[in-house]
């Protein structure tokens, strides 16, 4: 890129004025939003939904005798599986702790009203086998697995992420449209220059490049601001979520994404240019 192009880009950016500022702010908001969502997704997947984590399986037995038989059956099936049992009394106390407003009622009930529960930690592969096995057992009334809850949580989070990223993309498209309008305004303001540039032998690329770069610069600036906002959010949330981390890739992608959105908007804005006088 020659000095002329550099000077022209600087001038176009300066002349884009308030409209250019709006474009930069929009890109910053869109990219910060997208980056935050992406970071949240990565954190949730690593911290909450890691597929290699052991799963907790809980089986509710029909009674104490069935619980003992079930424990023995589990020991025979998989001797290495650690099983902890919660007696009806313990279940009663746990429920009273969880629901203090119902504690009085719960604690007046006969402890035999509460079923014994067996809780075990199993590997991800073992979980897939043991859950149907437990469900088929006559001693068991209910089986719950943390993995099933994880799957539900993952589905919900995926839906939220898709909606959020959709919003980020919509915002980025909006940014592209704003940059398009900014570039169109610049082209209209410089129509005489463009016509004269053609006349004195400027190549098409010489004419378009400053506008395209102006769009990219506005987008990239917005992306950099978005990355700074994201870094600020990370500092804020780090105290609450110490394992939260923003990847360097995310920081790098925001200015690039902004620049691409700006360039795309600018290239549409340059679809038709004034011809020579």
């Amino acid at each position: 890129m020659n000095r002329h192009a550099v000077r022209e880009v600087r001038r176009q950016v300066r002349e884009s004025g308030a409209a250019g500022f709006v474009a930069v702010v929009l890109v910053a908001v869109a990219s910060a939003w997208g980056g935050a969502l992406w970071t949240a997704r990565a954190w949730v997947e690593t911290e909450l939904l890691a597929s290699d984590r052991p799963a907790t399986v809980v089986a509710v037995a029909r009674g104490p005798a069935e619980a003992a038989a079930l424990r023995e059956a589990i020991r025979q099936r998989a001797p290495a599986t650690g099983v902890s049992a919660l007696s009806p009394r313990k279940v009663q106390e746990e429920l009273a702790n969880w629901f203090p407003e119902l504690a009085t009622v719960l604690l007046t009930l006969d402890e035999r009203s509460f079923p014994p529960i067996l809780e075990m930690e199993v590997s991800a592969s073992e979980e897939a086998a043991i859950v149907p096995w437990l469900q088929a057992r006559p001693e068991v009334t209910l089986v719950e697995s943390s993995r099933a809850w994880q799957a539900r949580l993952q589905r919900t989070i995926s839906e939220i992420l898709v909606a959020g990223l959709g919003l980020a993309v919509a915002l980025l498209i909006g940014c592209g449209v704003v940059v398009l309008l900014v570039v169109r305004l610049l082209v209209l303001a410089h129509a005489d220059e463009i016509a004269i540039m053609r006349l004195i032998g400027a190549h098409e690329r010489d004419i378009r490049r400053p506008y395209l770069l102006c769009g990219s610069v506005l987008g990239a600036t917005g992306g950099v601001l978005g990355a700074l906002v994201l870094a600020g959010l990370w500092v804020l949330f780090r105290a609450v979520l110490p394992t939260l981390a923003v990847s360097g890739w995310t920081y790098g992608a925001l200015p690039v994404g902004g620049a691409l959105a700006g360039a795309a908007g600018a290239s549409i804005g340059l679809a038709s240019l004034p011809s020579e006088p």
Partner: protein
Amino acid sequence: MITLEGITKSYNGRPALRGITTTVDRGEFVYLTGPSGAGKSTFLRLVYRAELPDSGAIVVNGRDLTTMRRRDVAEFRRRLGVVFQDFKLLRRRTVAENVTFVLSLLNFPDREQQRRAYLVLKQMGLQHRMSAYPEELSGGEQQRVAIARALVLQPDLVLADEPSGNLDPERSHELMELLKTINYQGTTVVVATHDRMLIEAHPARTLFLEHGRVVKDAWVAAP
């Protein structure tokens, strides 16, 4: 320098040029004259390749414009200087910037840009107005800046479309003297004008256009 062979051009079915055949030799000074709508501007637009003819061939500086690829047009125009009635200066740029614009586009070093701008503006008598903006100049000065811009790349051919149209008679004569000087220095000059008195005051070969045809090709002498 310029060869037109059977050139026709129409706009929305209305003919602007009808079978023009003529040549302009290197170093010549030629007027195009005729009433409004005779085809003078169309003639020039074809020569600087702003338009393509409907039929016929145009060769300028050895280049066939009808077959020229779009990307070669820019290079071709760098060997031309074009001057307009309304000057077409860049309003937001100073006189020097208007003149160096083409040089900066071609990535000339800054010092060379300034040197060339100074020399060409000095030739136009405007070296003291280099930092002025076009609106601060008189019509005659603006036209001289436009000529300086046209000359800064030392073109082989200068085309002027009604260059004196916005100037008073005195400035018009000064302008023609300037164009004549440029011509004496070896540049081919083609001037489109409907000002018969100007032609008579600065005699040269004249192509008379009417209804898109060359009706007379003659040397106009002073009355």
